[in-house]
């Protein structure tokens, strides 16, 4: 029998303060890809490796300790099971699977979900711990207001799915220049000049930030707001890279991450269908926007009259742009930015952060023992480096503000 087409809803989405509206078709498959399966609590299941001299690939036995039901999982299924933490969408899980195994089996996820549901090993609880905690304490007025505010902010999402034409035109009318050797050389020269200017300027941070007239903190916050515009440029360049490798840009927009972090974003997941080089270039070029802007800002600051507002503003912009470059490309900071994605792609360990934090937590709570395997060393290295890096990052910013204000 022919399978029916996915069910669709036609939704009418109103705009603020006008009769204007937009019509959107939402197929059930979109809901499916965005669903976040969550395995039951750890005390409700046990998992152990099945060792066999005959079988080439390892297998796993998953037991539901509440119902005493057993499931046999293959290694890829075990990998998928580990992703089902209630925070990762099926689309992200599928992407992680492709990164890990280099191919995609279209039936493995639906069939595993069916198996897990039959064994009552999946739940449908709220996806975020914060949101779950808020839901539990909804009786309090403050909590209810906070929950309402987060929900409202999460709904703010200005996005367009029809951006391929825009990015293609942008690429055709000059965007392609970003991916030429001349652009690479110009970027490198600017970076060297910018670094030289920064070294000169950093001889006395206090003089440099004097132009803010004793209100360095307020000045830096203003610079942060201006910096926000460069985040849009960062995302645009990611999109251009995607076009450069003849892949499709699926979406571009603005939203509040987790309900409170304002950000621009671009969906370039189609780049996963291209080579590793394409993925790395796409990730790196977006971040290099901050290198170039930061270098230009330092050069401007070095040319400006000492102690002037122009010098202070340009120098602070340079610092923030280069910090953004480091945060974007440096993989060891507990944030899954461009550098992290490059690292996990190269290592073939798409769940590095998740696994490393889980391992460190087990060690700290005494639930696990230190082992000498390659993976364990990688996990410990990731957590140690990330912790040190975050501490250094905070210390650097505190030093900048203190130097400027005293």
């Amino acid at each position: 029998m022919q399978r029916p087409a996915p069910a669709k809803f036609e939704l009418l989405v109103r705009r603020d303060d006008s009769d204007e509206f937009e019509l959107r078709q939402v197929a059930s498959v979109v809901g499916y890809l965005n669903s976040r399966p969550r395995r039951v609590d750890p005390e409700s299941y046990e998992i152990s490796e099945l060792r066999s001299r005959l079988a080439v690939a390892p297998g796993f036995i998953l037991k539901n300790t509440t119902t005493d039901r057993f499931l046999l999982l293959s290694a890829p299924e075990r990998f998928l099971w580990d992703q089902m933490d209630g925070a990762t969408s099926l689309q992200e899980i599928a992407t992680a699977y492709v990164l890990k195994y280099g191919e995609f089996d279209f039936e493995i996820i639906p069939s595993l979900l069916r198996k897990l549901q039959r064994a009552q090993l999946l739940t449908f609880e709220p996806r975020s711990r914060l949101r779950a905690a808020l839901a539990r304490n909804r009786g309090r007025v403050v909590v209810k207001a906070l929950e309402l505010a987060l929900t409202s902010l999460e709904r703010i999402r200005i996005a367009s799915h029809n951006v391929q034409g825009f990015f293609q035109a942008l690429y055709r009318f000059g965007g392609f220049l970003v991916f030429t050797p001349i652009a690479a050389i110009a970027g490198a020269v600017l970076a060297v000049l910018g670094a030289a200017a920064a070294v000169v300027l950093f001889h006395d941070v206090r003089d440099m930030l004097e132009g803010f007239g004793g209100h360095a903190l307020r000045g830096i916050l203003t610079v942060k707001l201006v910096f926000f515009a460069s985040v849009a440029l960062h995302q645009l360049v990611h999109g251009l890279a995607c076009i450069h490798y003849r892949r499709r840009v699926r979406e571009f927009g603005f939203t509040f991450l987790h309900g409170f972090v304002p950000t621009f974003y671009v969906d370039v997941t189609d780049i996963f269908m291209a080579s590793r080089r394409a993925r790395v270039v796409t990730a790196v070029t977006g971040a290099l926007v901050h290198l170039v802007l930061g270098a230009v800002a330092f050069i401007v600051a070095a040319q400006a009259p000492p102690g002037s507002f122009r010098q202070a503003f340009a120098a602070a912009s340079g610092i923030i742009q280069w910090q953004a470059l480091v945060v974007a490309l440096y993989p060891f900071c507990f944030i899954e930015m461009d550098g992290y994605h490059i690292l996990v792609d190269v290592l073939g360990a798409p769940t590095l952060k998740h696994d490393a934090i889980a391992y460190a937590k087990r060690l700290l709570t005494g639930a696990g023992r230190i082992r000498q395997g390659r993976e364990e060393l990688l996990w410990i290295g990731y957590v140690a480096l990330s912790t040190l890096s975050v501490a250094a990052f905070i210390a650097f910013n505190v030093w900048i503000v203190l130097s400027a204000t005293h």
Partner: protein
Amino acid sequence: MQASAETLTFLRDVRVFELFSGPDLAVVTGRLRERDLRRHQILFREGDRGDEMFIVRRGTMLISKAVTGKVEQVLVRVEPFDFFGEMSLFDGSPRSATAQAETDVELLILGRDSMQAMTETAPHAAAAFFYAMVQVFMERLRRSTLQVAEATRWGLEATGLDVEGR
């Protein structure tokens, strides 16, 4: 409104007036009012009071029901020769959905007083009107049942819920 030949010809193809005699249709036509809507203009909102039904003469109307926040589900598109808003015509209840123009629209309006006058002065025409209306109601009820089933299918597909295996 003058019973123009154009409106008379149009009404002959409207389901609820199909069985009307020429003189009866001319009387009804004389009682209809006209209204134009520009694209995306709201005619009425869910919860508004109302006692009129609307026949689409030109353009397309969208009937939608609030789901959450600013999001509404499109229940149906109303094309020329079709009508909507008839529930409030009969019982004067608040509008159960919102009606807005998808394109520029021309509407003909039949008020409750006109329907009551038709019942008194042209009982044969009124009987034909109500008979056709009952048939339309049944068709819409069947469509609503299909929509409920479709919504259930959407939910099952979107969650990947394995009902057969339980």
